[in-house]
């Protein structure tokens, strides 16, 4: 029973503060979508709106054929996994898992059978009679997962489920979560501030900022082809260089950076180049060359650090501070001058020059 989630033009306020603005999001059946962003970006608010703990000022939330927007939280039939596990401290592990079935009026024999089967799937059947207080963090989160899955919800939501676990366990648990989600084919929404976690686990990721979705796509596209400065910076494009086109000659476009330095870029290799744009690159996307005549931005080299696979240079240019990587075979001395040449397949052309 997999269903698609459709959120349309959702707006929400805390008091008079707008925390979410015209947010639309579609999660396909059986898809796992992450909401990724720093704290305060609205990702948890979105999750709480879907769960029914908050009411939107405008917009609709639909799951399958049902309109959830004004439905009380306890009638929404959504499985939730919390950051701090939120197990019932006074109930045993088995009672915790069976709780949702009890609310659904499942007879006690059947309830026990299904709860035990689910505990078996997360590998905790031997702990069925324990109280949650006696479990480790990882075990608690498995119980929480079993408790949410046993009701076979059409939608499963995770609110930073791995934040309280140590690094090693986090990686194991996210694989486990993904495997269970795949096996059940449950449509899922996953909230996290951890980029690696979101990218590794999701079919698609929505990167959020200030109550809006900045870009919503597959991890691969987000990582390689950000469409705006915020997302570019978020996924590690450290250099954002505002540029202006000054001349076009067929495929070749001559652009000028602040301070007057000019570059000639091929549209065949960089993609269509508008009149005003921002060139975004990671440090690897700017090659450092000592040749004075090369077609690049003139720079003064600052601190050099050793990365193992390359040297990294802090560079001062007329267009601002940039970070570039240079070959290990030809180390350059700090204080010298060099040219920074954009590497075509590692650069993104972003519309507009606003950073």
């Amino acid at each position, binding site marked *: 029973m997999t269903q698609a989630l459709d959120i349309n033009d959702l707006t929400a306020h805390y008091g008079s503060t707008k925390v979410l603005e015209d947010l639309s999001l579609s999660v396909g059946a059986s898809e796992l979508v992450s909401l990724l962003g720093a704290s305060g970006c609205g990702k948890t608010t979105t999750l709480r709106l879907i*769960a029914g*703990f908050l009411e939107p000022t405008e917009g609709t939330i639909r799951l399958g054929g049902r309109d959830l927007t004004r439905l*009380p*939280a*306890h*009638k*929404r*039939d*959504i*499985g*939730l996994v*919390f*950051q*701090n596990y*939120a*197990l*019932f*401290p*006074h109930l045993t592990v088995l009672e915790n898992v069976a*709780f*949702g079935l009890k*609310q*659904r009026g499942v007879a006690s024999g059947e309830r026990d059978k299904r709860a035990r089967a689910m505990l078996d799937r997360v590998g905790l059947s031997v702990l069925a009679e324990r*109280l949650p*207080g006696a479990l480790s963090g990882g075990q608690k989160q498995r119980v*929480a997962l079993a*408790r*949410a899955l046993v*009701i076979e919800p059409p939608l499963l939501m995770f609110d930073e489920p791995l934040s309280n676990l140590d690094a090693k366990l986090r990686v194991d648990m996210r694989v486990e979560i993904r495997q269970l989600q795949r096996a059940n084919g449950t449509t899922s929404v996953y909230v996290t501030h951890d980029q690696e976690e979101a990218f590794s686990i999701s079919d698609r990721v929505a990167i959020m900022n200030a109550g809006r979705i900045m870009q919503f796509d597959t991890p691969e596209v987000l990582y390689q082809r950000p469409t705006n400065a915020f997302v570019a910076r978020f996924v590690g494009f450290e250099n954002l260089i505002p540029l202006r086109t000054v001349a076009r000659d067929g495929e070749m476009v001559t652009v000028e950076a602040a301070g007057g330095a000019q570059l000639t870029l091929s549209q065949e290799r960089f993609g269509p180049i508008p009149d005003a744009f921002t060139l975004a690159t990671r440090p690897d996307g700017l090659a450092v060359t000592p040749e004075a005549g090369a077609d690049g931005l003139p720079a003064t080299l600052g601190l050099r650090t050793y990365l193992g696979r390359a040297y990294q240079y802090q560079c001062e240019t007329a267009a601002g501070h940039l970070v570039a990587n240079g070959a290990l075979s030809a180390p350059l001395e700090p204080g010298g001058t060099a040219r920074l040449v954009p590497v075509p397949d590692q650069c993104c052309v972003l519309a507009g020059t606003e950073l």
Partner: protein
Amino acid sequence: MTTRLSPALIAVAALVYIFLVGPLIIVIGASLSDTTYLTFPPQGLSLRWFEKIFEITAFRRTIVTSLQLAFLATGLALLIGIPAAYALNRYRIQLPSWLSTVFVLPILVPEIVLGFSLLKSVAVGASFPIFLSLLIGHTLLVLPYCVRVISASLASFDFSIEEAAISLGSPPAKTFFTIVLPNVRAGVVAAFILAFITSINDVSTSLFLTGPGVSTLPIQILAHVEQFFDPTIASVSVLLMFLTVAVMAIVERTLGLTFLAK
């Protein structure tokens, strides 16, 4: 390995115990005396002063009144205090500091002032029956303890547990009783005990609110002392002590044990 305690420490500890338990021993001893006047150590042993309590109608009546009052006032204060504490914590209502002191005000204000103002407003002003005036007074007196103690308990309760239950299909009202309340039981038991003791031992507030025919046990003890100096006073004090302890024990057994076992 056992830690060796210094003799000085043992001596101080012993002194503290003597100081705490001493008065109780004196009262219990005096209540068992066979003499017609209050004395310690007791001369001769007798239970006749305990029998005497029940021969005096005023004592019989006020014991019942005090118990009724303590149970009702504590019950009412819990009925008001639990939802109040829940609302304050659940919705993280940030009261301005002056407003949050309102909840401790009845503790800070001398009880005698509370009694006097209630006398003016409730007993005389609204001419409520005496028992009702006493009930209002005692409820006000114990309410701050209930709100404070249960609030402290709720402050460490993770409300996402409540949300987890709701998301699993449990309606909010039901969730309060099946999930929230069992997890703050320790606070409720503590509030009950504190409120009950405060109510049953209260003199200052009750002093103004008792009247012809209706009085509480501590007020009756006070009245008795003014006229008589026999060991009845000691025996009735012992009785009051044991009544309180008995109620505590019952509450602990019925509500508290499962918590203590954890």
